């Protein structure tokens, strides 16, 4: 116990040292500050440190204070009205009531009434003068110090706020006077020592001074050799300070990109605004497909429509109408150029894959080739806890003569292992531009459940032969990234991902895969 107390004493901050001799088993902050000769905020800081060390407990106490108002302040300077009157009466020996007002410099007439009351109470006789006016008559009464005046003088020294303790009679008197003072409730702090604290109080604090800071001067002169530094309490918390950082979604995106780059994939980039031609027609989505309807797609108001690429447009139109040269029957309808030209916000990044296939034909991209993107797509939906109108799609294609359905499973399985999902399963699915199509579920080992995450398949010949110019198998997949994000960061409401809440951005864990 004593040893602990001594070690504790050694590590005290100068401020703590200052207040320590003045600590009582119980006391208030105000008293302590006064006794130690420090500011209340300083004493409070020291008390908090000592509380952290288990020396004492701080309590919040509500106390009543008397706050002096304007009239009270005036009286403190000029004297109370009754004192003025008494002084005058003593001089004149007789004072008509009508003249009292004149005797009160700077007071209004309303002060007269209370003053007469006071004088009567003091036992000063009230008479009628010879000419029939009511008046006071002086008798030799012992003049005592007025406790109210003493209270006001005390308040003047204390910024017009005083505690009520011990001066109750004077306070009562003062409160009766209108506009002189009022009682306010004030939150105050008090403390009481713990057993440790009582032990500490017994330890003799050495007067020896510790150094607070290692200064450049000490280093220059070598004074540090004779210096003992005050030990800190290195176990307590310090104020939080957050550094700058990338958005947590971008941290995840960068990781996902890195996985595909490690697999030898090339990143695809392109515009967010696309024509219906590239976004849908080139992928053999029929022009009357329900997904094209207004409620799902953001169409652009102005410019309402774009331009169609010459050569590839002709081939896409043919494949829709009659299968073109792909060996397909096609959709067998009249293809509308007007529909194709409509500008929209891309509904999927599969549009980038379609444009990559077109670039392969032009010799701008490699064949065989593997391509990916992690980027924004749009859906015209109301923003709520499970819907976003902008989100990210992870897209990938593998273009190669020898690519097969088994490889699709191979790539996705390898990717998800790196994302923390040890196994996948695939089920038949449907997308207008893939055949065979597959839905991919991944196994979440923590929650022990399958999650539906990916749409995938092999692009239809109507897509590949039309865009590349020859029929090369193209494995393709697309998945919403936000589902991966919310699960990793344990976010329940999708809106919280893009709310830019400073507290969240500062404190959310890093992407640690």
């Amino acid at each position: 116990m004593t040893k602990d107390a001594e070690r504790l004493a050694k590590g005290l901050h100068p401020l703590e040292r200052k207040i320590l001799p003045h600590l009582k088993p119980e006391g208030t902050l105000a008293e302590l500050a006064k006794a130690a000769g420090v500011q209340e905020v300083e004493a409070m800081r020291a008390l908090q440190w000592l509380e952290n060390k288990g020396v004492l407990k701080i309590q919040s106490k509500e106390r009543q204070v008397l706050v002096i108002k304007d009239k009270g302040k005036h009286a403190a300077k000029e004297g109370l009205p009754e004192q003025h009157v008494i002084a005058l009466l003593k001089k004149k020996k007789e004072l008509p009531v009508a003249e009292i007002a004149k005797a009160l410099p700077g007071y209004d007439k309303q002060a007269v009434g209370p003053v007469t009351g006071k004088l009567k109470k003091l036992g000063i006789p009230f008479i009628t003068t010879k000419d029939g006016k009511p008046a006071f008559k002086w008798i030799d009464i012992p003049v005592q110090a007025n406790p109210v005046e003493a209270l006001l003088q005390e308040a003047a020294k204390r910024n017009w706020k005083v505690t009520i303790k011990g001066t109750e009679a004077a306070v009562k008197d003062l409160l009766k006077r209108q506009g002189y003072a009022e009682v306010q409730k004030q939150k105050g702090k008090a403390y009481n020592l713990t057993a440790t604290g009582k032990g500490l109080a017994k330890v003799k604090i050495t007067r020896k001074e510790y150094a607070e800071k290692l200064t450049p001067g000490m280093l220059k002169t070598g004074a540090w050799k004779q210096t003992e530094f005050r030990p800190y309490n290195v176990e307590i918390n310090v104020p939080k300070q957050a550094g700058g950082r990338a958005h947590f979604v971008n941290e995840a995106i960068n990781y996902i990109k890195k996985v595909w780059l490690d697999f030898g994939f090339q990143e695809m980039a392109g515009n967010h605004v696309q024509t219906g031609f590239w976004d849908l027609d080139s992928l053999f989505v029929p022009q009357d497909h329900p997904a094209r309807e207004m409620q799902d797609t953001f169409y652009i108001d102005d410019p309402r429509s774009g331009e169609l690429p010459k050569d590839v447009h002709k081939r896409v139109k043919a494949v829709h109408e009659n299968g073109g040269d792909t060996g397909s029957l096609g959709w067998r309808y009249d293809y509308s150029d007007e529909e194709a030209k409509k500008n929209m916000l891309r509904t999927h990044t599969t549009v980038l894959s379609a444009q990559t296939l077109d670039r392969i034909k032009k010799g701008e991209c490699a064949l065989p080739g593997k391509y990916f993107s992690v980027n924004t797509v749009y859906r015209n939906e109301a923003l709520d806890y499970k819907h976003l109108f902008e989100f990210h799609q992870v897209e990938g294609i593998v273009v190669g003569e020898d690519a097969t359905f088994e490889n699709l499973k191979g790539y996705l399985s390898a990717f998800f292992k790196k994302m923390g999902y040890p196994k996948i399963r695939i089920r038949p699915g449907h997308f207008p531009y893939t055949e065979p199509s597959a839905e991919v579920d991944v196994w979440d080992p923590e929650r022990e459940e399958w999650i539906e995450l990916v749409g995938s398949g092999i692009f239809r010949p109507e897509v590949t032969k039309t865009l590349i110019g020859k029929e090369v198998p193209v494995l393709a997949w697309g998945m919403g990234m936000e589902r991966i994000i919310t699960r990793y960061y344990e976010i329940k409401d999708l809106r919280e991902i893009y709310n830019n809440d400073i507290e969240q951005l500062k404190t959310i864990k890093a992407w640690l895969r």
Partner: protein
Amino acid sequence: MPTITVSKKEVLKTLGKKLSDEQLKDRIGMLGTDLEGIEGDDINVEIFPNRPDLLSQQGFQRALASFVGVKPGLKKYDVKKSGEKVIVKNLPKEWSYAVACIVKGLKFDDQKIKEVVQLQEKLGMTFTRNRKKGGIGLYPLEKISFPVTFTGKKPKEIKFRPLEFPREIDAEQILEHHPKGKEYGFIMDGWKTYPVFVDDKGTYMSMPPIINSHDVGKIDETTTDIFVECTGPHLRTIVESLAMLTTALADMGGKIYSIEMVYPDKKFSYPDLTPKKMRVDHAYINKLLGLKLTNAEIGKYLERMGFGYENGKALIPAYRTDILHQADFAEDVAIAYGYENFKEVIPNIATVGGADKFETFCDKVRNLLVGHGLLEAKNFHLINHDAQTKRMLLNFNTIKVLHPVSLEYDSLRAWIIPSLIEALQRNKRYEYPQHFFEIGRVFSKAKPADKSDTGVKEQVRVAVALCGEDADYTAIRQVLDDLLTKLNVQAVYKETEHPSFIPGRVARVYVGKEAVAYIGELHPQVLANFDMTMPIATFELNLSVVGQHLA
């Protein structure tokens, strides 16, 4: 995608074997339909749009039975001649085709009627695109006298009592007052005449694709024989609809009788349930799937999916409308083979990967700004028009989207700073200073020189916003100076005017001759417009342009 409800009891009866719910769930998922759940007798299952033939209890259980190996191969349907005729003439050009037939010997009960209504609704919703590509009608045969005529009439001439309506009204009133008229009336916008079925006695039977007559077009538990018709603007679509409908009715126990459709210039008999023959490219299928199946195995798998298979050719049932190419056989073979049985193989395709150059550049900018202790924000590209213009004391046209569901997000952003101010506004309850940056895309109308196929110009910019008592020109300038120094770009600052900034505290930044940034202290009125009570110093730098100047 539509979800249908089928009866588990009936499914199991057709399968003829006992399957647990778990086994059923597994098989339904692997058939190529998406099981939503089994509750009591209800199996709720989502049907993909390429398989409208599965939209009925009968179609679904037919496919499932074949898939689990109970009744594989082509299912044959017998069609006899009814000898009846439907005369097709004087139709509106927008709705010029009709096909019809008769199904007899049905035993309707509550469940069966529910099944027929479900099929009719779901086909209408998906395959015929909310009736825009076709309408379907069923009538008790005994209430109709042949020959029936399908013809166009002026709206005022058409008068009958529509289904579940208290009285007889004309066509215009139907579109105005009947629930189905209100729902689908838009299809007939601008038509001079409306198509109607009229029987030999002159009774109006229906007005496709809106509504049947209550008097002669309503089937109930007493109905055994029915007249079925499909009408619309595309012959193929309605022929296929009729095939799906009649085969489902036949599976219910009905017998199919054809009707002769008499068009002014030709005659056809429907339904036509003859399977189509198509050569199977076995090598193609094996290559795509990465398998080495024999022709016989492929044939067996096709039969599991309900196809016939003879001499290397597939017989495609009339209700299978999704077979356009060999790839479609490949998928069905894969399903029958079992998706779960494919191996996971990484192919030996050597390629050189790489990140997009510009994205890599943006990453560098991101790292440099993080070094300044800034937090990266990520806002939507869609934002409110007024937030970018009026509230910033500006007036210009942004790129707006049509009919946005959220009116708060009605246009693509032309600049990033308003997004950052909105983010700061949402963080008012936290302590200051608050410093954000964002790298993102902005949108404006393209000029011919921009060579944009959509007419929209897209550029990437970075914006930094310092917010707090000490956020001033010097502080923000220090960030931009440092960034440009490290990007090795020589920039010149020139005094300028910009309504969003305090006059005299805003500069335009040039790299070479190109203006690349605005930098300054935001105007107090702008801050007031966003309800901000802290100064903001900010810049927005065009990375698309700066990227081209990199040494």
